[in-house]
C-alpha cells in the first residue's frame, strides 16, 4: 500500500529495460515486480487500469479509516485520562457511510462493465486458434487465418529440456542458469511456442483434453479455463511484436507448475512466412510414405475430433462462451 515510490522507480526501470531490448516488449515477470503488466494488446490496459483505480480508491479509504482509528487510539486512551462517552448512535453518520461506498461502487461497476463487455465480444476475428490443455502440455491448432482454413498446422508445446532437467528434485542444476539471452526463462520457456501475427484480432477456442487447465499469458490481460467438453472463446489483438510468457493457472496435477505458455508475436509478413513453412512441413510427410492410402486416413482420423469440437464455434456471432 505504501509502495507508490517503489512502483514509480520500478516503472522507470522497467521502461529502461524495455527500451534496451530494442523495442521488443518483454512483458514477462521481472525481479521485484510490484504491479500488473500493462500487457501488449488492445485490451490488456483494461485490467491494468481497473487495478490502478480500485487500488487507489482502497488506499484513500484505508488512509481515512485507519487514520481515524489511529487518531482514536492516541486520543482516547485511558492512560491519557480519556473518559468514555455514552453515545452509540448517529443516524446521519450511518446514512453517510452507507451512501458514499454505494456511489464509489457504482463508479467502479460502470468501469468494469465497460471493460468486460468489450472483452466478451469475440466477433470480427481474423484468425482462429484452438488451444487444448493436456497433463502437462498445451496443444495449438491453427484453424483459420484471414478467412482461409489453415492446412493441418498444429503442435504440442511443452516445457523445454533445460528447465525440465533443472526442476527435477535435487537436480543440482541452477535455475538461474536457464536463460535465453539476458532473460531468465526458468519454467517459462517451451520447446515450440505459439506463433501469432500482430495487429490481428485472434479468436481462441480453448478446451481441455483431460482435466481442467487455465490458459494465461499476463501480457494478454486474461486467463480462460480449458475445460474438457467445453469450448471457451476469448480473443486478443497484440500490438507489439515480442515474446510473451505465461503459465497454466489452474491446478491440474503434479506437473501443474511445469506447463508454461509462450506466445511469439511476429509482424504480419513474418507470420505469413512462418505459416507457409508450417503448412509445407505438414503437407510433406503425407506425400512421402509408401502406403499412400493409409496415411491420409490416419491424418483425418486424428483431425476429426478437433474439427468436431471447433465446429459449433464457427458461426460469426459466437456466444461469449
Amino acid at each position, binding site marked *: 500500500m505504501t509502495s507508490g515510490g517503489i512502483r514509480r522507480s520500478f516503472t522507470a526501470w522497467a521502461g529502461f529495460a524495455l527500451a534496451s531490448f530494442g523495442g521488443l516488449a518483454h512483458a514477462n515477470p521481472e525481479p521485484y515486480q510490484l504491479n500488473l503488466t500493462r500487457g501488449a494488446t488492445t485490451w490488456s490496459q483494461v485490467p491494468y487500469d481497473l487495478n490502478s483505480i*480500485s487500488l487507489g480508491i482502497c488506499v484513500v479509504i484505508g488512509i481515512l479509516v485507519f487514520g481515524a482509528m489511529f487518531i482514536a487510539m492516541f486520543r482516547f*486512551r485511558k492512560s491519557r485520562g480519556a473518559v468514555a462517552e455514552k453515545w452509540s448512535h448517529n443516524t446521519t453518520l450511518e446514512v453517510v457511510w452507507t451512501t458514499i461506498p454505494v456511489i464509489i461502487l457504482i463508479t467502479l461497476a460502470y468501469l468494469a462493465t465497460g471493460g468486460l463487455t468489450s472483452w466478451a465480444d469475440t466477433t470480427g476475428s481474423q484468425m482462429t486458434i484452438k488451444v487444448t490443455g493436456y497433463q502437462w502440455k498445451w496443444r495449438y491448432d491453427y484453424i483459420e487465418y484471414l478467412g482461409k482454413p489453415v492446412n493441418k498446422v498444429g503442435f504440442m508445446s511443452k516445457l523445454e529440456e533445460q528447465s525440465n532437467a533443472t526442476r527435477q528434485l535435487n537436480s543440482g542444476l541452477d535455475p538461474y542458469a536457464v536463460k535465453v539471452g539476458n532473460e*531468465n526463462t*526458468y519454467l517459462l520457456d517451451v520447446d515450440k511456442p505459439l506463433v501469432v501475427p500482430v495487429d490481428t484480432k485472434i479468436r481462441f477456442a480453448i478446451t481441455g483434453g483431460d482435466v481442467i487447465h487455465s490458459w494465461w499469458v499476463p501480457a494478454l490481460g486474461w486467463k480462460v479455463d480449458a475445460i474438457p467438453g467445453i469450448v471457451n472463446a476469448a480473443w486478443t489483438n497484440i500490438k507489439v511484436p515480442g515474446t510473451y510468457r*505465461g503459465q497454466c493457472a489452474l491446478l491440474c496435477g*503434479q506437473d501443474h507448475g511445469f506447463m508454461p505458455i509462450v506466445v511469439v508475436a511476429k509482424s504480419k509478413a513474418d507470420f505469413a512466412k512462418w505459416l507457409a513453412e508450417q503448412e509445407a512441413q505438414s503437407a510433406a510427410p503425407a506425400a512421402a510414405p509408401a502406403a499412400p492410402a493409409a496415411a491420409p486416413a490416419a491424418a483425418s482420423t486424428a483431425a476429426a475430433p478437433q474439427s468436431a469440437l471447433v465446429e459449433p464455434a464457427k458461426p460469426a456471432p459466437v456466444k461469449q462462451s
Partner: protein
Amino acid sequence: MSYAATHDQHDDHHGAPKGFFQRWCMSTNHKDIGTLYLIFALTMFFIGGSFAMAIRAELFRPGMQLMQPYFFNEMTTLHALVMIFGAVMPAFVGLGNWMIPMMIGAPDMALPRMNNLSFWILPFAFTLLLSTLFMPGGGPAGGWTMLPPLSLQTGSLAYTVFAIHLMGISSIMGAINIIATILNLRAPGMELLKMPVFVWSWLITAFLLIAVMPVLAGAVTMLLTDKYFGTSFFNAAGGGDPVLYQHIFWFFGHPEVYIMILPAFGIISEVIPTFARKPIFGYKAMVFAIASIAFLSFIVWAHHMFTVGLPLGAEIFFMYATMLIAVPTGVKVFNWVATMWGSSMTFETPMLFAIAFVILFTIGGFSGLMLALVPADFQYHDTYFVVAHFHYVLVTGAIFAIISATYYWLPKWTGNMYSEFWGKMHFWNSVIWVNVLFFPQHFLGLAGMPRRIPDYNVAFASFNMVSSIGGFLFGASQLIFLGVIIHAAFFSKNKATDRVWEGAKGLEWTVPSPAPYHTFDVPPVIHDDELAHGNVHA
C-alpha cells in the same frame, strides 16, 4: 440480582465427573465440550500449520529441494482442508459452546448428547482424512475445492469424501444445537435484540451451516459415484459437466467463507466495546449487517468462477452482487471505529488482536473488492494475489479473532490471568510476521505467479524468500500462544476476578472465574445496563 443468584447456585447438585473417560468422552457439559473443541482446533491449527511450513520451505528458493510436486500438492490441499474444517470451524463451535449458554443465561446447550456426538465425530473424520497421507496412492492432491476431473484421479478420494461427510454431519448437528439453544434457552428478559452480537453472529452462521453443508455433501457424493460407480455427473464424455461441480461446490463454498468470518465479527464486537469502555456503535446496524452479508453470501458464488466461461450476463450479475457485500462490511468496520471514537481505551492482548483484525481484515476486504471486478480478476484469478487476499481475511481475520477471543475469555475458563507480557510478545510477533508472510504475495500475484505451484521462475525468488521467512517466524510465534495457554491453565498464580476486564459487560462476567461446572441453573434476572451494547432502545 443476577450476580448474587448465580454465585450461590453453582455446585449444589454435582460437579464434574471424576473419571477421565467419563468426564471427557461421555461429557454432555457445554463447557467441557467447548474445551474439547478448542483443544482439537488448536491441535489441528498446528498440524495444518506444519503443512504450511512444508509449503513455504519448498518455496523458499527456486528449484525443487525438498519434495516431489505431488507431495507439495498434498500439502496445499490438506493445509486448506485441515485449517478450514479442523481449525477455524471447530474453534468457533468451541467458543460458541462455551460462551453462548453463558451469554444468554442458559444452563447448557439445548441438546447436550448431540453436542457430545457432534464433537466426537471430528477426531475420527480427521484421522480418516490424514491417514490418506500414509497410503500407497497418497492423499488428496487436487486442491481443497476437489475439482473434477482432477480430483477423480486421486486414489484416496473415498477417504476424503467420507471424512467430509463426517465433518458435515458434525457441523450440522452443532448448528442445530446452537439454533435450538439460542431460540429456546434464553433467560427471561434476554430478548433477541438484546443478545450479544457474538450470539447473533452465531445464530446467523448456524443457519448458513444448515443451508450449505448438505450441498457440499451432495457435491462430494457425486464425485464418489463418478469415481467408483460409473456415473457421469461431472464427466463430459458421459454427458456430464465439470463446471456443474464448481457451481454446486461454490454454492456451498461462498457461504462457507462467511461461516468462517461472521462469528469473528461477533467476537470483535464483544472485545472492542469492553476495552473501549463504550457501548458498541450501532448495535442494530451491526446485527443487520451480519444478516445482509449472510443473505448476499448465497448469490455471489460464481465470483469464484469468473474464468470458467460464464455468459456475460452472469459475470455482470455476480460482479455487482459481490461488490454489494462491501456495503454491509464497510458499515461494520466504520461502526467498530466509531465505537473506539470518544472511548477510554486500554490495550490488553485481546484488544490488540481485535484492532489488528479490523485493520488487516479490511486490507483483505480491499483486495476482495479488487477481485470482484471481473476484468481485473482475469489477471488476479488463481494467482498469489488471491492467496494473499484470503489469507488476510482468514488468518488476520478469522484466526486473529479466535486468538483475541481466547485471550479475552481464557481467564473466565481457567480462573487465572494469562501472562500479559507473553500475550503481547505473541501479538507483536504475529502481527509483524504475518504481514511479512502475506503482503509480498500480493506482488507475486500481480507479477504473474500462479498459486499451487511448487517451483517458480527466478523473477519471483526474492518475494518468495521474504514470504517464507515471515511464514517460519509467524509459525514459530504461535508456539508462544501455546505456552501462554498452558501457563494460564496450569501454572499461573494470578487469579482472575469474576469481571476480569474493567469494561466487561454481559452475563458471562457475572459468574465466578473459573466458570463453575454448571451455571444459570436458575435463570438470571437481566438488567439492561449489564448488556455490552447498552440500551438499544435509546
